[in-house]
């Protein structure tokens, strides 16, 4: 893997911000898009644009073919048993809401428990809170240690036959922690609970084998995997999806409609009401083929090197406190400085061309845990370099100087 070749795949990286080369370190929020993804989206609009599953003309047949080919790419990428288990959504958030609403509505009632972790993104907290409010079920939280690792002893204690579902993030966007989901899933299954894995942050950085993990529900977003925004996937076991009521009603999700009764379409279409983000799905497929062309072995190795390099600098930077120091972590350096508020850091670094995120990262309970209002977060990806890490720390040095 040649870093220069990879950087050349991403046209956006070649630009200056306030006279400095762009240093894009906000990959946990969204990754940049390689030319092949941009080309796939563009080709659809330039050559194939038409609606899918409903035209007999050539354009519609081509669009339908490419849309369904993307589904097959995604099935293969995550080693899913059947493409009937691959449902396109607007992203992780919608995928989780789909499960909370459809599966949760049918399977969760008063006295049941939903178990999530302290480090969840708001999108894996709020839908469950809403479900609990509707049904009278109880939301329980797996605590975490100061390092940003989940307390596995507490997890085992919290699991019981009352637990209907465990919602767990594969890799935390606020801390970088990679959770031991395989054993967590086994333990949950042992008490009869289903598991939803939020793969939004992990999917581009760690190989994920849905069948080996035996995940019941898996949600992720294309835009964090070098694909377009506003598209993602819910992967779920076929027998669960078969038993679940539809999430939204409309076109495409039906077989037969009369005013008396509607017969729903087969999977996966039952959960894809309305005209989907066709270009987005096609771009999603192109993005996963791009990741496959590099391979997770190289990705993991490279991203690890980069995180180690950045962490070493963080450890010697005066006044810097790292937030999240789990043994098993990737790609995320979350921190606070003793003299400069993260939000000011964000602005000051931007003037040096360095893009980071400052805020609560949609994980306010994590901020509450560490008793900080916000953190600054640099998050890395395959195209980042050691020089960019150096630029980050040089800019941090300037910020510290300003508030000295």
């Amino acid at each position, binding site marked *: 893997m040649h870093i220069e070749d990879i950087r050349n795949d991403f046209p956006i990286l070649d630009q200056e911000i306030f006279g400095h080369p762009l240093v894009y370190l906000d990959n946990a929020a969204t990754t940049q898009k390689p030319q092949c993804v941009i080309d796939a989206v563009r080709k659809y609009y330039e050559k194939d644009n038409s609606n899918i599953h409903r035209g007999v003309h050539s354009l519609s047949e081509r669009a339908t073919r490419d849309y369904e080919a993307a589904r097959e790419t995604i099935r293969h990428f995550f080693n899913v048993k059947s493409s009937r288990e691959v449902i396109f959504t607007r992203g992780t958030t919608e995928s989780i809401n789909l499960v909370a609403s459809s599966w949760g509505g049918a399977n969760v009632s008063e006295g049941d428990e939903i178990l999530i972790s302290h480090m969840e993104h708001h999108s894996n907290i709020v839908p469950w809170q809403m479900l609990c409010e509707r049904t009278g079920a109880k939301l329980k939280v797996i605590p975490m240690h100061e390092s940003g690792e989940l307390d596995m002893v507490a997890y085992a204690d919290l699991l019981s036959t009352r637990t209907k579902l465990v919602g767990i993030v594969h890799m935390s966007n606020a801390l970088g922690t990679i959770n031991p989901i395989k054993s967590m899933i086994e333990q949950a299954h042992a008490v009869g609970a289903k598991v939803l894995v939020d793969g939004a942050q992990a999917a581009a950085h760690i190989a994920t084998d849905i069948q080996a993990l035996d995940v019941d529900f898996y949600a992720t977003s294309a835009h964090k995997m070098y694909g377009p925004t506003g598209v993602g996937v819910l992967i779920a076991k076929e027998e669960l999806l078969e038993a679940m009521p539809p999430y939204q009603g409309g076109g495409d999700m039906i077989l037969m409609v009369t005013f008396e009764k509607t017969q729903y379409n087969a999977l996966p279409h039952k959960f894809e009401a309305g005209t989907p983000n066709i270009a987005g799905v096609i771009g999603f497929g192109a993005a996963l083929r791009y990741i496959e062309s590099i391979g997770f072995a190289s990705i993991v190795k490279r991203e690890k090197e980069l995180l180690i390099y950045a962490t070493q600098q963080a450890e010697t930077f005066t006044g810097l406190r790292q937030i999240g120091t789990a043994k098993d972590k990737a790609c995320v350096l979350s921190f606070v400085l003793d003299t400069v*508020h*993260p*939000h000011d850091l964000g602005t000051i670094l931007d003037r040096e061309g360095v893009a980071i995120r400052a*805020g609560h990262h949609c994980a306010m309970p994590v901020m509450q845990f560490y008793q900080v*209002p916000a953190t600054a977060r640099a998050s890395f990806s395959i195209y980042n370099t050691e020089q960019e890490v150096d630029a980050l720390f040089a800019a941090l040095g300037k910020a510290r100087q*300003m508030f000295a």
Partner: protein
Amino acid sequence: MFSLGDLYQEVIIDHTKSPRNFGTLDPCNHDAEGFNPLCGDQLHIYVQVDAQNTIEDIKFEGQGCSISTASASLMTQAIKGKSVADFKQLFASFHHMATADLDEKPDEEALGKLAVLAGVKEFPSRIKCATLCWHTLKSALEDAAEPAKTE
């Protein structure tokens, strides 16, 4: 091109490091909380208003970036001893300054020291940091039921 110095003027750094009128006020007859969900800024403003509608005393506490802290600090200095009507006028002038065209000079006569915050208009994502305290004080004076937001 705008420089960081336009935003982080010395006065602002000074008020960040040692905010004036910081703390709680007892007694106080109005108070309100304000949140900026984007960056986690959180303010609490306490005011004591007398029978003549004069803001006798004002204090704030909370956690925020340097712009929101300095803005709150400067605001409390500017407002103390003024009438509620003066506050409304000053809020309007401040809001105008923070969102005005880039080449418009701040009205230093109306704004006094508050004009040092004029630089925020060059940093669109930071305007709300500067205006949060004003929205919060407005909520306090109106005894609003909901915490103030900057939307």
